């Protein structure tokens, strides 16, 4: 899918050379159409053998019973070794005790920040806790001069989700039957999120209104920006050479000390309907080899999911990737229910209304619990029936 779909065709000749009896046909999908296409393919019994899947889609396709459990294959494999993968990422591929995917590359969110501006305000290191972070935000913000501490684009749910995942309490309760947004944990996360806007630390804008995030970051319109690994190469490419020393990445600060973030990324899965499951697994093993992952990283910039691959000198030397390496040890999966994406979208919309002052914190958490209860109604019914039957 997307760029990965193009790049993988450069890796495959090697695989076909090693396995002369296997021919791989790659079908590329744009990310925007992929979800729809996969569900349609499932309905029409035309699913592929192997597929790249955003790891938040695994619960949905596992609920459809479309994916082949991979425990048996992984247990017998000398290449795919669970212990070598970052635990949070590996966990996103497990549903009800079965393994449905093997992580291919990872994605998480953390801080991009302007080292020079932070130093000018008297801070030599990035924040480790929310307290420190707030002190820095207050010190660097000058709302009159349109100078803000942080950019939290209102059209993304990920920053808020990352803050929410740092809490001990889960986002859904009772095995995903109800929302848990009224709980202390989420209230604390949303509270911080809203405080950042109310105090003028974050401008109430979406990325569309910013139009060029990289330029504005270079101009110092904001000091912190929560974003993902793809932006390392974007900032390297788009900021002028003399500014390259002025920015850095840092793990997300947590409520008290270093915090968790989102366990995102893509996995490789095998479809149950496939008639070439053994061959499909061999392809997954090939793409999981540290040497192949290194090439894949060099081609795409996507971050590898295995610790062994990270020991490669090229990656170990990359100062911007270092924070990701650290953050990846502390990533947590979002709730693993098929309805989660919809709930996350509601979360973003409600947060946006609260930022615009149309909802208070209490009203926002209440609205979210109500919406989540509606969205999860079918799931409760299914679980109740399964319990009875």
């Amino acid at each position, binding site marked *: 899918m997307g760029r990965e779909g193009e790049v993988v065709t450069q890796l495959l000749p090697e695989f076909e050379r090693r396995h002369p009896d296997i021919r791989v046909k790659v079908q590329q999908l744009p990310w925007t159409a992929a*979800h*729809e296409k996969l*569900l349609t393919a*499932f*309905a029409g019994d035309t699913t592929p053998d192997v597929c790249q899947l955003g790891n938040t889609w695994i619960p*949905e396709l596992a*609920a*459809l*019973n*479309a994916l082949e459990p991979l425990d048996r294959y992984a247990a017998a494999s000398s290449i795919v070794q669970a212990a070598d993968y970052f635990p949070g990422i590996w966990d996103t591929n497990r549903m009800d005790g079965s393994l449905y995917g093997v992580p291919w590359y990872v994605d998480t969110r953390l801080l991009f920040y302007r080292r020079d501006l932070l130093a000018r305000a008297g801070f030599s290191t990035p924040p480790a806790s929310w307290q420190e972070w707030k002190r820095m935000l207050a010190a660097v913000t000058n709302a009159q001069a349109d100078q803000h501490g942080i950019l939290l684009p*209102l*059209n993304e749910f990920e920053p808020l989700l990352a803050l929410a995942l740092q809490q001990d309490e889960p986002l859904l309760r009772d095995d995903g039957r109800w929302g848990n947004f009224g709980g202390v944990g989420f209230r604390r996360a949303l509270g911080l999120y809203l405080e950042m806007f109310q105090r003028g630390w974050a401008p109430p*804008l*979406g990325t*569309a*209104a910013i*139009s060029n995030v990289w330029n504005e970051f270079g101009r110092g319109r904001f000091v912190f920006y929560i974003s993902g690994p793809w932006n390392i190469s974007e900032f390297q490419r788009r900021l002028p050479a003399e500014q390259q020393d002025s920015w850095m990445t840092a793990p997300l600060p947590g409520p008290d000390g270093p915090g968790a973030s989102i366990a995102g990324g893509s996995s490789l899965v095998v479809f149950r309907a496939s008639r070439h499951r053994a061959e499909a697994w061999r392809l997954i093993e090939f793409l999981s080899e540290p040497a192949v992952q290194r090439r894949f990283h060099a081609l795409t910039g996507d971050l590898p999911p295995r610790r062994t691959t990270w020991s490669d000198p090229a990656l170990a030397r990359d100062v911007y990737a270092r924070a990701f390496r650290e953050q990846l040890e502390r990533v947590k999966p979002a709730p693993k229910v*098929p309805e989660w994406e*919809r709930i996350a979208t509601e979360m973003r*919309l409600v947060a*946006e*209304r609260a930022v*615009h002052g149309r909802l208070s914190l209490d009203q926002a958490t209440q609205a979210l619990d109500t919406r989540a209860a509606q969205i999860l109604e*079918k799931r409760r*019914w*299914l679980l109740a029936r399964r319990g009875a039957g």
Partner: protein
Amino acid sequence: MRRTAAAWCFVAPALLVIAIFFFVPVVAALGLSFTDFDIYALADPHNLRLVGLGNYVRLLQTPLFWQAFGNTLYFVVVGVPLSMLASFGAALLLHSRLARFPGFFRTALFAPVVTTLVAVAVIWRYLFNPHYGLLNYALSRLGIPAVDWLGDPHWAMPAIIILAVWKNFGYNMVILLAGLQSIPEPLYEAARIDGASAWRQFRHVTLPMLAPIVAMVNILTIAGYFQLFAEPYVMTQGGPLQSTVSVLYFMYEEGFKWWNLGSASAVAFVLFVFIFCVTALQLRLARWQSAA
């Protein structure tokens, strides 16, 4: 009798195709709207529940549906008159004897209709850009402060309307132009002999002769504008603050993003009933007018 049978034989293939590819899906969708078909039901048909009118009841209690409905009404109420005026004005100009190169202008004004929307959207996103867009540049020349067209919840819908009117007026223009050209010249001659001014010729010859065409174009335009989807889909994805979510966009998200095909079908039928009522009302009005 034999002739009717022969006629049925001739239309049978067409009827069959219409029945299979139109009526069956419509009836199936109606059936679907009484169920809670979703991905769980896709996995196992036993997970399908009959919910009767549940989808409809819940839909009418969903604030976002009403917001989408309001947005769509706003789009129709403002967009249709603007579009009709633009089409009519352009048709009159092209029909005028003073017009130079009518063939060229007819093609140029019709061009937006046949251009793909995705390409058009790229251009218009630049035109609407708050910092270096042409539109704000023109406004600043008039001393009007910059408008954040696609980022401000109050301005996003007007921006969509401007785009839609520009994109679609050429189509009606061609139909109206054909109507204008079919008005017999002797009527104008007679009016001139009676001493009618240009305005009175327009008022008493052009408008009455064109009335049936205007009524038809109006009905088609309103029905079309109620089905607003592509413009917000490519320009704003329904944002900001859901100010450009139309009923059809709402249905798309419900059905193809969240895969709740049951409630998405219900949205489709609510919209259908509404458009049907509006069209029936218009037909009644047109008939009443022509009788008067």
